């Protein structure tokens, strides 16, 4: 019998709300792009590279910052033991459109590098010095059972001891990030890591 894993933290950014572990931490009225900057300022983050990122990476990076802030004890793990498994629907199309607009004048290498969805994983790994397993999947909708299976495999087979997983989507005016920190640590009032519990958090309206 495999050991149980738990969602030791989760963070959700959607509809102008930043929510961690079910608590609303920040509300913003304004468009998708201004939310990213407003949240960055509100949480007093200091990471100059943030301003160079495309919107998908900014969103994923912000969600990871808020997810990991506070209770996460990174020194419990080696960098190689921490994994990042993400998914979304529209890949990097938000930045692809911007990059291709630049081609007519002069193709921009700083936009081109973000025309891959897994760059957001790279940004999270650079920031947090995570060096473990990683994968980016494209799914029409969040496939919680698939993500659960992928993460459970890594944890059960010693490919990882801790995993940041979830959904990071950004296209035009639409955005949604839901990240889960999955660890093999039982804590009070912490949900079991399961597709059902991920779906509950993913679909909650978060007031």
């Amino acid at each position: 019998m495999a050991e149980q894993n738990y969602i030791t933290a989760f963070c959700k950014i959607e509809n102008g709300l930043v929510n961690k572990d079910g608590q609303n931490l920040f509300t913003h009225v304004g468009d998708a792009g201004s939310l990213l900057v407003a949240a960055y300022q509100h949480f007093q983050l200091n990471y100059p590279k943030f301003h160079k990122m495309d919107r998908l990476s900014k969103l994923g990076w912000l969600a990871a910052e808020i997810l990991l802030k506070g209770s996460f004890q990174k020194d419990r793990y080696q960098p190689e033991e921490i994994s990042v498994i993400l998914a979304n629907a529209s890949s990097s199309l938000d930045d692809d459109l911007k990059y291709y607009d630049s081609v007519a004048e002069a193709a921009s290498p700083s936009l081109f590098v973000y025309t891959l969805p897994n760059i957001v994983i790279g940004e999270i790994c650079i920031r947090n010095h995570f060096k473990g397993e990683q994968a980016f999947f494209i799914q029409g909708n969040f496939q919680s059972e698939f993500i659960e299976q992928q993460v459970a495999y890594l944890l059960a087979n010693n490919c990882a001891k801790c995993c940041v997983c979830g959904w990071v989507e950004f296209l035009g005016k639409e955005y949604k990030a839901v990240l889960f920190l999955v660890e093999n640590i039982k804590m009070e009032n912490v949900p079991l890591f399961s597709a059902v519990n991920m779906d509950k958090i993913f679909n909650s309206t978060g007031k």
Partner: protein
Amino acid sequence: MTKVNVKDVFIVADNVYSPVGNTTALNFVRLKENSSGVKKHADTAMSPLPFYASLFGQDAGFKRDGQYTKFEQLLIRSMDDALNQSAIDPGDPKTILIISTTKGNISLLETEKNSPGFKDRVALSTSAQMVADHFKFIQTPIIISNACISGVLAILTGMRLLRAGVYENAVIAGADVISKFILSGFQSFQALSPGVCRPFDEGHDGLNLGEGAGTVILSTDKKYAGGLKVKGGSVSNDANHISGPSRTGQELASAIKNTLQDAGTAAADISFISAHGTGTVYNDEMEAKALAIAGLNNIPLNSLKGYYGHTLGAAGLIETIISAESLRRGLILGTPGFARAPDSYPVGASAAHKQADAINFLKTASGFGGCNAAVIIGK
């Protein structure tokens, strides 16, 4: 490392569909004759300056007249050949389809950006579902888009799903099409070689892009025992830079080390290495350092990029399938463009093919976002 219920994962059938040839066997024969898909192209619609790449010609007959794009037609042609060689039923609930690509239908951005429904049409899940429906798969396909490790990661994802018993069979297909979008991006990075690429050679000066598709079908069904096995694999991240590789190669070395352990294979039992070997100074140097850390820098090594260019999301599949054919035929292919390695980081590359009683090979890949992947295939 303890593993519960590890199942052997066998290769059932495969296909490489490239400008070099449209079956694995034909590709291998042409590579043996040192025939390359990389040619000089002067196409001002794609690039104001001439460039070297491995591209399909007009005679390949990819026309946007029906429902499928060139990207989808490539996947379908490659999968069709592989499925026809096997008795695997796509309609079996125990069969999963895994698609690997970096940019899929992005070329539609150049021609159909303002058409209604563009965003849905360009979505990778639309393409994957259309391809799945064409072959009557009943499971929703899995799509991997993880830069240049996509193909190797797709094989590992299939291997793990099969080992865990979630499915019995996996049809893993990858493709990418080279368009102005991709070409202009690599040009803006000044990553392209002005000629044919020379991986691991002291004169290496950039990569060539290439288009193509590869399909490999895996199964845990014992009736396929006797075929080659996908023995193990691992993925890592450099946590260093989004567009430049690790300075030390430590993270790729760590993925290689984990792969050897997962496969239960000693370094001495690796007969050859199919490297990523793009032909850029940064990539080749990092790979050479990683192989030295892993104690594998004296083992015969090749890069197939001089034959195919960098086929992006298809590269890990095409290069793994050709290397598997090398095991079956006992012939390790050479590295076109290679003459002499820099003194600072020697590797076991050679221009010439070499006959060998090869047992296992290691395939590596690295990509933007700092990702690395490795897999071992063997007898």
